[in-house]
């Protein structure tokens, strides 16, 4: 009898169906969603525009950053809010806006809670083709999840008149209410914070335009979503938590890399051209001007503008730095004092 039982168990095991690759992927994706969902909260910001009317409000998402109640979210959503509340499950907390970073668009809220589930941040940047699983609050539905991939990285987008650099471009569908939500990779670590969505309207050349049809008659293309990279979220959140305000170094210039033709004409191997100088900034005070070529920053050649941007941002207190510039074909040494971004 025992032998028969053992034989039947063996046969049953042999006939158990192995999961297909697709089933395994599905299982992994749902596991990631279940893992990160506890870290996603709903944020409601109220704006008292007209005292005679009920307060206007915006609902979106946030991610728990620390167990003791720091929450990161999108700065645009809480800008000028008179009241912010954070909701997790059936618990609702009054939230205090600690500070926002205008450069990355990250805001840090504080709620009085001691047992929240912080998200685990990835220490590797997102890569094109990688999985991107977004969890947010689409249309107020808590824990809404969607699945996609990383389209591209290091994208610049303009939202509300501001330029945000190094954004992650995603195929992951996001909906109103998902802004500030968590974007996770295949291991369940946060790679980004949902930021914005493209309009999705194609305006390619079309015969319709010849016939005077409005572009809105065209079928929209698939929208693309964007996320703030986890490294930028971590930088802003850590600085805000440490100083209770955003501390970011500022030079006060906009620069662009020299292209190959310009470098050949100038006989340079590296450098960046200043295209704009901010008024009332360290650069203006040091008499830097547009069309100056930045050659060296603090003794290091300017080869990578992204790295230079990070280097300046990391300054925590006013710091004197030597720059080498090229102006009208003449090399000059300039001393400039990096100050702290006033977050205007």
């Amino acid at each position, binding site marked *: 009898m025992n032998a028969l039982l053992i034989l039947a168990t063996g046969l049953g095991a042999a006939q158990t169906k192995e999961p297909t690759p697709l089933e395994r992927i599905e299982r992994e994706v749902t596991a990631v969603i279940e893992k990160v969902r506890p870290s996603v909260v709903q944020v409601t910001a109220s704006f008292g525009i007209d005292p005679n009317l009920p307060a206007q409000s915006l*609902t979106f998402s946030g991610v728990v950053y620390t167990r003791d109640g720091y929450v990161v979210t999108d700065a645009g959503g809480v800008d000028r809010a008179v009241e912010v509340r954070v909701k997790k499950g059936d618990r609702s907390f009054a939230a205090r806006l600690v500070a926002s970073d205008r450069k990355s668009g990250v805001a840090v809220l504080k709620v009085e809670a001691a047992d929240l589930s912080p998200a685990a941040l990835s220490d590797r940047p997102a890569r094109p083709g990688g999985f991107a699983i977004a969890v947010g*609050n689409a249309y107020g539905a808590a824990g809404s999840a969607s699945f996609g991939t990383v389209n591209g990285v290091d994208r610049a987008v303009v*939202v509300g008149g501001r330029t945000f650099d190094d954004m992650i471009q995603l195929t992951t569908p996001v909906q109103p*209410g998902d802004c500030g939500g968590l974007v996770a990779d295949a291991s369940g670590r946060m790679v980004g914070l949902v930021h914005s969505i493209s309009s999705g309207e194609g305006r390619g050349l079309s015969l319709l335009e010849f016939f005077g049809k409005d572009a809105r008659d065209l079928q929209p293309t698939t929208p693309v979503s964007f996320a703030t990279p986890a490294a930028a979220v971590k930088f802003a959140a850590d600085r805000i938590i440490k100083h209770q305000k955003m501390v970011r170094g500022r030079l006060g210039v906009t620069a*662009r890399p020299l292209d190959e033709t310009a470098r050949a004409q100038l006989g340079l191997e590296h450098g960046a051209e200043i295209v*704009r100088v901010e008024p009332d900034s360290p650069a203006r005070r040091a008499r830097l001007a547009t069309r100056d070529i930045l050659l060296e920053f603090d003794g290091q050649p300017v080869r990578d503008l992204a790295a230079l941007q990070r280097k300046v941002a990391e300054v925590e207190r006013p710091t004197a730095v030597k720059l080498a510039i090229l102006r009208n074909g003449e090399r000059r040494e300039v001393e400039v004092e990096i100050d702290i971004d006033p977050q205007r």
Partner: protein
Amino acid sequence: MGLSCEDVRELLPLYAGGEAAENERVAAEAHLALCAGCARELDHYREMRANLASVREEDPPSGTWKAITEGACARLFPRGARRAIALFDEALRFAAVLAVGLAVGVGAHVAARPDAPATAVVRTLPGGGATVTAAPVDHPSFHLNPEPPTRYYAPRVNLDGSYYLPRVEAMPVTGERDF
């Protein structure tokens, strides 16, 4: 028993055109040989056929129809009435042309006019934040279909912006960075 005169007169068109059956032809010839009245009838019929055949082969002389019309009017209507009738005919002709022209113009204008805006039904969902609009949507139909286009109401949820997700205004590729 031979054919009667009445029978033969009924056969005359076929007999004269050579289309009578053999037995009918023999019976008709036997009767015609003995009946002068039917023989004269046959001659008159053949003369009329010949005259009709010659009329089809060529147009009537110029002025024939006018002469016929004027002659008929002169016999039917007094002199004063003839002028009134002529004027009335001209007026009627003009009115007919005008009516056709107006019909074509009005029809073209109606076809080119855009449809009147459809009225939509709007209601707010409980809890606010969203409205449902039911607006008529023209169902496209094959252009040769004589039936008017079918309209059905398609509900559409409109959100009033309470759920936040900003839109990208531009994606600059200049490589510029500010710091």
